[in-house]
């Protein structure tokens, strides 16, 4: 029905046949995309189990967790974690989730798989770089995981690795010797991998678009991956030298981040004049754009998927794309809002709060466009659509608290409390993951040629949706009453009455986490037993639906798609009584 306009070709790409070249060191962007997805899946379950451990300890500080003493006899004697080991696990939870899940899943995994297909290319611009980029990421993952198994465990300095704690070594506490070395090396390796990946995404988008695929005809997801790769290119290029300087402070005795006169464990540290704030500036100059690296691809994915289920184009396509670009640009001007209470000049804090408030404008525009597009729609409530709606909900819930935190005067009170934990989990973590879930249910048929179970999908959605609200909504109240974050147990008088709330959150977190097993089972079951998917099961318009499910090695079977429309031709008079036009559908006149 929706044939790809083609030209005869002389020869087709031949797919590799050996196991190693086909599945392990593959140059095929689709295999690499799945590899990224697999790595993110492993990371997210490790990160989730870590969050379970943290939550159990917070709510029941005396509870003996059986296998924990096996992981670290020193960190968790008898299965009860020490306050330091709590911080070690917290560091690993944050690091795994931010780098190996929220960066890898919506951006690297789906971007690798679908960006080339959505623009009608056979592969990425630099397939070899692409392969290197995944395996470098994998190496970073292995190095990071190794920190669990070194003598004093993972670092206690958090995923932000604030100096001087992260820069000084074993005198400052457990995990800050070899564990912190491994952390810094892993993140440096991750930077290199991300730079290679971003370079590939940008070059592919610029150079390999099919005939007729003008920039404004690219689907929103492609736009999001493109803008994100520009952000990632410039952000990781700053984190990399920052990590190098941190490593030099740790192993070469330099004083970039370590101030003079620092006494730890009764020992004067042999450093002079370094600036801990310098690390924060470099880190957050990367770190804030990183937030958008995590969320923009999901916004793009949602904006691509939602219209397919409302059966009408999104409102304001150019405003949406413009908002993404504006966010990408502004994301470089707001890093100081992570540092309001760092000891930075308060005047700087006021300066940084202005662009922070301004960046809410494009974010609000995007949210309003997504929401307003629902008005009067004849919605198809399949699982991907539910996750799109869920995304809008959690993105708004998390975004609204951002307005408060953008004010230095309010942030001074709220910064070190659970209010911030609630904010960033909603707006970055859960929202981004909802994009990943929507993308998974939507694209699974294309990636594996089989549909996922709808009923399991709906169970998964409702349990997750209600679960995350039960987990993160109460944290706002905890924060407002002054419940500090990063503490391993709440034994102070004023915090003790809050323990029941923490128990509620912990139970909700355990159940919400368990609901993810439904998703895991759905993935596995559908991979082998799901109903066979047609070429275009959702009646979508973009190019990935104009090829077989799953696509052949060269994506379009030796053909070169020609694009005649933007991706928004929904709710129109299509061929054969359908209500949509594929991007490849030739105009009637020709």
């Amino acid at each position, binding site marked *: 029905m929706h044939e790809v306009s083609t*030209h*005869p*070709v*002389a*020869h087709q790409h031949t797919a590799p046949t050996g196991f190693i070249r086909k599945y392990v060191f593959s140059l095929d962007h689709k295999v690499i995309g799945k590899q990224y997805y697999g790595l993110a899946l492993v990371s997210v379950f490790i990160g989730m189990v870590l969050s379970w451990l943290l939550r159990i300890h917070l709510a029941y500080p005396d509870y003996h967790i059986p296998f924990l003493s096996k992981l670290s006899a020193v960190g968790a004697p008898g299965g009860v974690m020490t306050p330091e080991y709590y911080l070690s696990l917290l560091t690993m939870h944050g690091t795994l989730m931010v780098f190996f899940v929220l960066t890898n899943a919506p951006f690297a995994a789906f971007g690798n798989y679908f960006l080339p297909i959505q623009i009608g290319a056979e592969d990425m*611009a*630099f397939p070899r770089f692409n392969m290197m980029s995944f395996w470098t990421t994998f190496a970073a993952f292995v190095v990071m995981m190794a920190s669990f198994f070194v003598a004093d465990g993972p670092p206690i300095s958090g995923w932000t690795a604030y100096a001087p704690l992260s820069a000084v070594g074993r005198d400052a506490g457990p995990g800050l010797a070899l564990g912190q070395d491994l952390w810094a090396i892993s993140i440096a390796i991750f930077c290199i991998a991300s*730079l290679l990946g*971003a*370079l590939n995404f*940008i*070059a592919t988008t*610029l*150079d*390999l*678009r*099919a*005939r*007729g695929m003008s920039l404004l005809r690219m689907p929103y997801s492609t736009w999001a991956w493109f803008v994100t790769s520009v952000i990632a*290119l*410039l952000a*990781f*290029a*700053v984190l*990399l*030298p*920052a990590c*190098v*300087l941190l490593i*030099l402070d740790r192993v*070469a*005795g*330099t*004083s*970039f981040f370590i*101030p*003079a006169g620092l006494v730890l464990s009764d020992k004067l540290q042999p450093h*002079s*004049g*370094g*600036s801990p704030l*310098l690390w924060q*500036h*470099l880190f957050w*100059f990367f770190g804030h754009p990183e937030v958008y690296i995590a969320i923009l691809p999901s916004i793009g994915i949602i904006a691509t998927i939602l219209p397919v289920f409302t059966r009408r184009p999104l409102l304001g396509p150019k405003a949406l794309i413009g908002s993404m670009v504006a966010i990408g640009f502004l994301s470089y001007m707001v890093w100081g809002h992570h540092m309001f209470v760092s000891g930075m000049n308060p005047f700087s804090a006021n300066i940084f709060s202005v662009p922070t408030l301004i960046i809410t404008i494009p974010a609000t525009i995007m949210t309003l466009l997504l929401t307003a597009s629902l008005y009067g729609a004849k919605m198809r409530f399949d699982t991907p659509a539910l996750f799109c709606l869920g995304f809008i909900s959690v993105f708004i819930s998390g975004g609204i608290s951002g307005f408060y935190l953008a004010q230095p005067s309010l942030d001074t009170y709220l910064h070190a409390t659970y209010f911030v934990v609630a904010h960033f989990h909603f707006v970055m973590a859960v929202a981004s993951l909802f994009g990943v879930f929507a993308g998974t249910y939507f694209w699974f048929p294309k990636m594996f040629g089989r549909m996922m179970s709808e009923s399991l999908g709906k169970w998964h959605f409702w349990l997750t949706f209600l679960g995350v609200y039960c987990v993160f909504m109460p944290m706002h109240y905890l924060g407002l009453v002054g419940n500090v974050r990063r503490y391993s147990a709440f034994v102070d008088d004023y915090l003790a009455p809050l323990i029941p709330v923490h128990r509620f959150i912990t139970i909700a977190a355990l159940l919400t986490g368990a609901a993810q097993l439904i998703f895991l089972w759905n993935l596995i079951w559908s991979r082998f037993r799901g109903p066979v998917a047609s070429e275009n099961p959702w009646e979508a318009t973009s190019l990935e639906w104009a090829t077989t499910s799953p696509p052949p090695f060269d994506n379009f079977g030796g053909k*070169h798609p020609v694009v005649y429309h933007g991706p928004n031709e929904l709710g129109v008079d299509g061929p054969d009584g359908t209500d949509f036009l594929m991007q490849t559908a030739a105009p009637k006149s020709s």
Partner: protein
Amino acid sequence: MGVDVQDAIHAGQKLGGSGLPPVTRNTRLPKVALSERPERSETGVWIGIFAIVMTFAALTSAMIVREGVALDWQHFQLPKILYLDTVILFFSSWTLETALSKLKEGENRFSAGMTWLAVTLALGGMFVIGQVVAWRVLAGQGLFLATNPSSSFFYVFTAAHALHLVGGILGLGYLIYKLNRTRSAARTTGIRATSLYWHFMDGLWVYLFVLLLARM
């Protein structure tokens, strides 16, 4: 050869428009001049340049902050060999351009072009050796990586640049290897990308040299 056809296809696709005949893998597009042919490796180098600029901008701002934040910054004399190194790298950009213009002139100037490429490669190698000599000179004066923030930044900047330049040397070496096999500049990809990267490394060094002169 396969790469050429693919390039031609992408060149055709970029032109777009409905009036053009369909471009296929069979189509042999007329050879375009070296300087006009679009190459994705060139796009890649441009993107890489943005990232490298960001890295060195971050290090520059870190140096300015670090110098201002404490009173322990000690100035020192840059080793004299850096002046020679600067001339060498500057000269290598000129030899590279000479090589490319010879290669473009056609078959009869091909070997002359290859000679100039080899000279460029050698100059690049000399530059890196010169940097190592500069490090030895400083070490001889007792200025090591951790001696003072100024020497720390000196080593970090020069080592980071040298590392990137070694990448350029490897790229140039690979280009010479490819040209040796094809014996034709028109049928070899990556010429423009390599030269762009090389000139950028040259420019980046000039920036760093001025910066180090001013701050060390």
